[in-house]
C-alpha cells in the first residue's frame, strides 16, 4: 500500500481520500463495499480508501479529519447516503480539520444504488459513482463562501397567530420586523373561533393579547391590507414590493372597521384585531429585509354542493358556521337554536374534506383529494359538543366518526367528557360514509335522517333523526399561488408548503432565508402553530444574529484570459445585475470583459452554456468536472 | 338457561316469606352453634350471613336445576304452581343430605375456634344472624334487596351492634359496601381471618389459594389470608390469575344456568390444578362450585384450624 501511494504521488497531483459507508447494512447488504474499495484504490488520483459502519458518526468523521491533518489526502469523497442528508456533515468535518470545505464531493450509493439495485450490478454502479466523484474531486478547488451584509430585519407574511408569534419573538430578540397582512385584521383564522380546545382559552383573548403586544412593539411595523406584489434578492437582502389597498369587503357582512368607531387594537369578533390603519387609496412600497417568514395560514374546507346534503338541505351546515352561530347566540336554554330553529338533535359528521381516499371519495372541484388528516377537527368538534351539551341539555348530539384523534395533551379528556355528556358516537368505515337524507319514512317531525352502517353496533344500519347536520370540515392551505410562483416555493402533494426535511430542517425551505411558520405547512392547533412560529423565529434570529450571511460560493467565474467580450453571457443571464460588461485593463489595453456580482449570481450556469470561448464556469460545478465524470461512466477499467 | 324472571320471583318470594332465598325457616338451617359455647355478649358479633349454611341446599337444588336445564321442563318452572317442591322450602330441606350439612357446620365451628384462639372478644346471637340478601342484589331485585337489608340492619341497630365479624366474601361485601349505600347502616366489619392472632409453625404444607372475586377485586383482601397462612408455615403456591386478577369459580350463575356455572368452574379448576397442590377456598360459593367441577377443596378455616389443633 505505502509503495503504491508513493507511485501515485508522482502520477497524480491530487490526493483524493475516499470514505465508503456501510450505513449499518443499508449499503453493505447490496453493495460489496470492500470490493468497491479495492477497485477505487487503483485509481490514479486516489490516495486512500477507507470504509466504516457509519461514516457520519464521530469516529467516521474523525477518520477523515486525521487523514487531512496528516497530509495523506487533500481532496475528500464520501460515498454514503443522499447528499441532502450528510453533505454538510462532512464539509463540517473538513472545516474542523482546518481545510476548505469545498474540496469535497459526495457519491450517493444508498438512495441511488443499494436501495434500487442488487447484486454485482449494484457493486459495479457504486464503483462507477465513486470513481466519478473522485474524478470530479481531483478538479475541485477551495472556495470561499460569499459573505453578504444582512440587515437585522425580518418580514413576516401573514398576520394570523403564527405570524404574530414569530413577529413578537423576533422583536423581543432585538430584530426589526415588518408584518404584512392581506386583510384589514390581525388574528387570522383563530379570530373566527370562540373557545379553543383543549386549553379552554378564548380565541378573542389570545388574539387580542398577542396582537396587542405586536401593535405596541416599536420594533414591529404592521401593514394590513397589504400584499406582496414582487420579490427579488437573496438571503440577507430581499426586496419585496408591497401593495396596500382598500379592502374589498361585502358591506352587508363586514362593516369597514373604523367606520363603526372601533379603536386600534380592538378585537372585532370573527374578524380579528383592527390596527387602525385602513388605506383609502392604493399605495405601493418596498420592504428590504434579511429573512422572510411565511405564515400564510389555512382556510376551511368548503363542501361541494350535495356533499352530505350540503347546499341541498338548509339544515346542513359546517362546523365553522356552527361555532359562529353559537358565539353570536349565547343565550342559555334547554335547546340550542340555529338559524332561529330549535335543535332537538343534531349530527356531527367528521372528516368532511379530510382523509379522502382515491377511488372512494370523489375529487374536489380543483381535481384534487385531501388525503391528509386535518388534525384539529376531532378536538374542536368534541369541544363544541361539550359546550352544547352543557349549556343546552335538551339538544342531543350524534357524532359520526372514523377514528377519534384526540392525540394531544388534554384532548383525550375532551373525548371522555363528551361521552359522559351523553354524546352518542357512531363509527363508520372509510368506504361507508354516512348518508344524509330527508326524513320521510320515519315518524317524528325531524327534517333529516343520517343513516350509517355503525361498526360500534356490530355493523347494523342505524339511523339518527335530526334537526341539524354539522359537517366537520377540515383545513386546506390558503391560496397563495402568486407567492408560490413569485418566490418559487416548493409545494407538497397535499398542496401545503413543503419543508426541506421534516426533522432535519422542519421550518426551512430550499431557498435560503425563507422560513415557514404555522398552518401554511400543515394543519396545526394554536399551540403547535405558535411552536412552529417560535422555531422559525429562532432560525431567523440565528441567521441574522451576526449581521452577515454566508452564501454558497457556487457563482460564475470569468476566465479573463479566455473571455472575448462577446457579451453572450450577459444576454443570457437570468439575474439582473449578476453579470455586466465592464471596461478593464488587460495587458495595457482597455477591453470589455464580463464581470460577476457574486451576491446576485444564482449559479444556474446559463452563461456557461452560451459562452463561445468556454471562458465562464460555475465554481464547484464546472463543465470540465462534468466531462471528467462522463469519462468515468464510459471508462472500462473502472469496474474491471 | 332458566328464565331469570321466574328464578328471581321465586327467590324474592322466599326471602320475603322466610328471610332466606330457599324458603326454609332459619332455625332449620342455622344449627352449627348448638354444640359450641359462645357468649351472647361482647365486643364484636360474629355474623355468618348463613351463606355457608346454604351450600348443601344450593348444591342439591342446582343439581336438579341442571338436570332440567334446556329441557321442556324448564318452561314449566315459569308457572309458580309447577315449581317442584324439592327446589324450595321444606322439601329441599328434606332431600338435602345430613352429612353435607354437618361438614359446612364444621367450617363455621372452626371459625369460632379460630376466633377464640386469637382471643377475639366476640359473641354470637343466632337471632340476629340473618341472610344478607346479597343474591337479590346480584339478581337485580333492588326493591327486594333494600327491603331485606333494612330488616336485617334494623334488627342489628336495635340490638346496638357496632362491630361485625364476617365469614364469607359475599356477606362481607353486602355489609361493608351495600348496607351503607342502600340501608343507611355502617358497621365496623372485619372478616375472621383479619383477626387471626396466634403463632404456629405447624402448617408444613403447600396449598393453592383460590381468591374469590369479592376479596380479590371488590374488597382488596387477598393478601391477608396469604399472610395468615405464611405465618402458619403454610406455603401458598402462586397461581397466575390471583388477587385482583383472580378468575371466577362460576358459582354466581348457578341459579340461572347451572351449565354455564360448571363450564366456568371447570376452566378455573384447570388453572388451579396447574400447581398440583390442594386447593383452598374462603368462600362458600367457590367451595361448592369448585367441588361440583370435581375439585378437592378445603376451606381456609379448616387449614387454619388444623394448625391450631396440632
Amino acid at each position, binding site marked *: 500500500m505505502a509503495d503504491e501511494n508513493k507511485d501515485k504521488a508522482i502520477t497524480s497531483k491530487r490526493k483524493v481520500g475516499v470514505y465508503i459507508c456501510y450505513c449499518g447494512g443499508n449499503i453493505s447488504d447490496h453493495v460489496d463495499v470492500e470490493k468497491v474499495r479495492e477497485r477505487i484504490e487503483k485509481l490514479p488520483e486516489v490516495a486512500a480508501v477507507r470504509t466504516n459502519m457509519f461514516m457520519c458518526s464521530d469516529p467516521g468523521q474523525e477518520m477523515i479529519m486525521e487523514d487531512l491533518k496528516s497530509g495523506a489526502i487533500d481532496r475528500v469523497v464520501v460515498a454514503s447516503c*443522499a447528499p441532502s442528508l450528510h453533505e454538510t456533515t462532512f464539509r463540517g468535518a473538513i472545516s474542523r480539520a482546518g481545510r476548505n470545505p469545498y474540496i469535497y464531493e459526495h457519491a450517493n450509493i444508498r438512495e441511488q444504488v443499494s436501495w434500487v439495485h442488487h447484486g454485482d450490478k449494484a457493486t459495479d*454502479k457504486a464503483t462507477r459513482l465513486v470513481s466519478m466523484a473522485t474524478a470530479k474531486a481531483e478538479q475541485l478547488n477551495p472556495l470561499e463562501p460569499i459573505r453578504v451584509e444582512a440587515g437585522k430585519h425580518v418580514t413576516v407574511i401573514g398576520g394570523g397567530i403564527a405570524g404574530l408569534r414569530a413577529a413578537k419573538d423576533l422583536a423581543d430578540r432585538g430584530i426589526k420586523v415588518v408584518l404584512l397582512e392581506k386583510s384589514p385584521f390581525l388574528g387570522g383564522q383563530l379570530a373566527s373561533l370562540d373557545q379553543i380546545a383543549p386549553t379552554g382559552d378564548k380565541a378573542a383573548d389570545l388574539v387580542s393579547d398577542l396582537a396587542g403586544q405586536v401593535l405596541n412593539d416599536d420594533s414591529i411595523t404592521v401593514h394590513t391590507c397589504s400584499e406582496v406584489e414582487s420579490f427579488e434578492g437573496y438571503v440577507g437582502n430581499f426586496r419585496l414590493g408591497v401593495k396596500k389597498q382598500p379592502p374589498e369587503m361585502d358591506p352587508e357582512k363586514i362593516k369597514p372597521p373604523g367606520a363603526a368607531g372601533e379603536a386600534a387594537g380592538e378585537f372585532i369578533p370573527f374578524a380579528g384585531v383592527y390596527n387602525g390603519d385602513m388605506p383609502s387609496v392604493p399605495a405601493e412600497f418596498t420592504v428590504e429585509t434579511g429573512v422572510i417568514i411565511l405564515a400564510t395560514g389555512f382556510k376551511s374546507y368548503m363542501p361541494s354542493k350535495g356533499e352530505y346534503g350540503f347546499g341541498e338541505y338548509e339544515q346542513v351546515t359546517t362546523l365553522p358556521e356552527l361555532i359562529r352561530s353559537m358565539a353570536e347566540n349565547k343565550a342559555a336554554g334547554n335547546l340550542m337554536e340555529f338559524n332561529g330553529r330549535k335543535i332537538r338533535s343534531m349530527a356531527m359528521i367528521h372528516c368532511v374534506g379530510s382523509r379522502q381516499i382515491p377511488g372512494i371519495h370523489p375529487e374536489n372541484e380543483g381535481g384534487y383529494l385531501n388525503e391528509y388528516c386535518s388534525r384539529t377537527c376531532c378536538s374542536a368538534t368534541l369541544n363544541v359538543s361539550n359546550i352544547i351539551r352543557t349549556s343546552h341539555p335538551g339538544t342531543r348530539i350524534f357524532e359520526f366518526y372514523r377514528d377519534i384523534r384526540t392525540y394531544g395533551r388534554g384532548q383525550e379528556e375532551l373525548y371522555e367528557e363528551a361521552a359522559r355528556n351523553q354524546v352518542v358516537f357512531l363509527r363508520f368505515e372509510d368506504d361507508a360514509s354516512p348518508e344524509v337524507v330527508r326524513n320521510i319514512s320515519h315518524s317524528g317531525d325531524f327534517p333529516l335522517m343520517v343513516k350509517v352502517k355503525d361498526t360500534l353496533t356490530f355493523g347494523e344500519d342505524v339511523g339518527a333523526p335530526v334537526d341539524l347536520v354539522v359537517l366537520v370540515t377540515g383545513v386546506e392551505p390558503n391560496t397563495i399561488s402568486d407567492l408560490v410562483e413569485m418566490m418559487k416555493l416548493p409545494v407538497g402533494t397535499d398542496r401545503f408548503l413543503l419543508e426541506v426535511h421534516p426533522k432535519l430542517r422542519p421550518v426551512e425551505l430550499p431557498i435560503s432565508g425563507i422560513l415557514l411558520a404555522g398552518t401554511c405547512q400543515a394543519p396545526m392547533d394554536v399551540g403547535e402553530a405558535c411552536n412552529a412560529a417560535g422555531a422559525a423565529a429562532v432560525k431567523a434570529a440565528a441567521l441574522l444574529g451576526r449581521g452577515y450571511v454566508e452564501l454558497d460560493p457556487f457563482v460564475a467565474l470569468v476566465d479573463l484570459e479566455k473571455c472575448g467580450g462577446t457579451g453572450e453571457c450577459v444576454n443570457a443571464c*437570468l439575474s439582473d445585475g449578476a453579470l455586466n460588461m465592464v471596461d478593464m485593463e488587460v495587458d495595457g489595453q482597455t477591453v470589455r470583459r464580463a464581470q460577476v456580482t457574486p451576491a446576485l449570481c444564482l449559479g*444556474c450556469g446559463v452563461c456557461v*452554456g*452560451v459562452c463561445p470561448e468556454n471562458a465562464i464556469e460555475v465554481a464547484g460545478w464546472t463543465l470540465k468536472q462534468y466531462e471528467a*465524470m*462522463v469519462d468515468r461512466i464510459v471508462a472500462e477499467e473502472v469496474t474491471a | 338457561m332458566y328464565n331469570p324472571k321466574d328464578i328471581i320471583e321465586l327467590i324474592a318470594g322466599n326471602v320475603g316469606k322466610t328471610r332466606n332465598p330457599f324458603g326454609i325457616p332459619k332455625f332449620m338451617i342455622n344449627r352449627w352453634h348448638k354444640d359450641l359455647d359462645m357468649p351472647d355478649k361482647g365486643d364484636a358479633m360474629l355474623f355468618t350471613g348463613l351463606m355457608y349454611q346454604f351450600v348443601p341446599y344450593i348444591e342439591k337444588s342446582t343439581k336438579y336445576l341442571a338436570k332440567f336445564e334446556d329441557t321442556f321442563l324448564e318452561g314449566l318452572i315459569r308457572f309458580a304452581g309447577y315449581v317442584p317442591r324439592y327446589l324450595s322450602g321444606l322439601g329441599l330441606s328434606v332431600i338435602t343430605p345430613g352429612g353435607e350439612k354437618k361438614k359446612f357446620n364444621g367450617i363455621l365451628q372452626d371459625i369460632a375456634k379460630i376466633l377464640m384462639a386469637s382471643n377475639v372478644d366476640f359473641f354470637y346471637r343466632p337471632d340476629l344472624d340473618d341472610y344478607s340478601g346479597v343474591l337479590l342484589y346480584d339478581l337485580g331485585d333492588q326493591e327486594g334487596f333494600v327491603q331485606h337489608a333494612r330488616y336485617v340492619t334494623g334488627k342489628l341497630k336495635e340490638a346496638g351492634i357496632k362491630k361485625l365479624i364476617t365469614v364469607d366474601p359475599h356477606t362481607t361485601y353486602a355489609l361493608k359496601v351495600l348496607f351503607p349505600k342502600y340501608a343507611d347502616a355502617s358497621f365496623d366489619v372485619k372478616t375472621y381471618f383479619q383477626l387471626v392472632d396466634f403463632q404456629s409453625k405447624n402448617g408444613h404444607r403447600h396449598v393453592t389459594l383460590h381468591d374469590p372475586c369479592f376479596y380479590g377485586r371488590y374488597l382488596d383482601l387477598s393478601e391477608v389470608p396469604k399472610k395468615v397462612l405464611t405465618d402458619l408455615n403454610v406455603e401458598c403456591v402462586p397461581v397466575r390469575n390471583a388477587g385482583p386478577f383472580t378468575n371466577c369459580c362460576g358459582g354466581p350463575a348457578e341459579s340461572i344456568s347451572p351449565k354455564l356455572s360448571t363450564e366456568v368452574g371447570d376452566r378455573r379448576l384447570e388453572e388451579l390444578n396447574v400447581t398440583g397442590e390442594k386447593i383452598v377456598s374462603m368462600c362458600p360459593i367457590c367451595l361448592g362450585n369448585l367441588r361440583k367441577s370435581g375439585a378437592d377443596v378445603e376451606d381456609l378455616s379448616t387449614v387454619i384450624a388444623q394448625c391450631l389443633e396440632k
Partner: protein
Amino acid sequence: MTSLADNQSEGKILILATETCAYPGADSVGQAHSSYPANTFILRVRAPALFPEHFYLDCFNKGISGIIIMSCGEECPYDGAYKAMATRLDRVYVMMRQQELDIRRLRLTAICTVCNRAFLNEVNQMNKVVQELGPPQMAQS
C-alpha cells in the same frame, strides 16, 4: 468480468438531474426501494442550462447511449433557465440528426421531488430505446 460485459451490452444512460427537483426525486425512488435498471448514471446539476450543445454530442461520441434531462420544468428555481435550455436542445436535436443519431436518445422531461412513477417510466422507456438502438454510431466520428 461478466458484469462488465453486461453493463456494456446494456448501453449506458446519463441522467442530468436538477438539484432541487429531479435529484431528490431519484432519492425518493430510492427511499421507496423501487428497482430500476442499473445502467443509469445520475449527475447532479444546478440547472441543465449549463451544458452547451457540444456536451451532448461529446457524450454520444464517448459511448453514452441515451441521455435524459430531468429538469424542474416550470418549477425551475431559475426563472427563464428552463426556456433557455429548451431552445438550446432544439439545436442539439438538429445536430443529432446531422450526425444520424436517433433523437430518441435524448429526452427532456420534468421530474419533481415526489415523481416516483414518472421517474421510473422515463428510465424504463429510455432503457427500451437504447436496447433497441444499440450503441450510438456517429456519422462524423
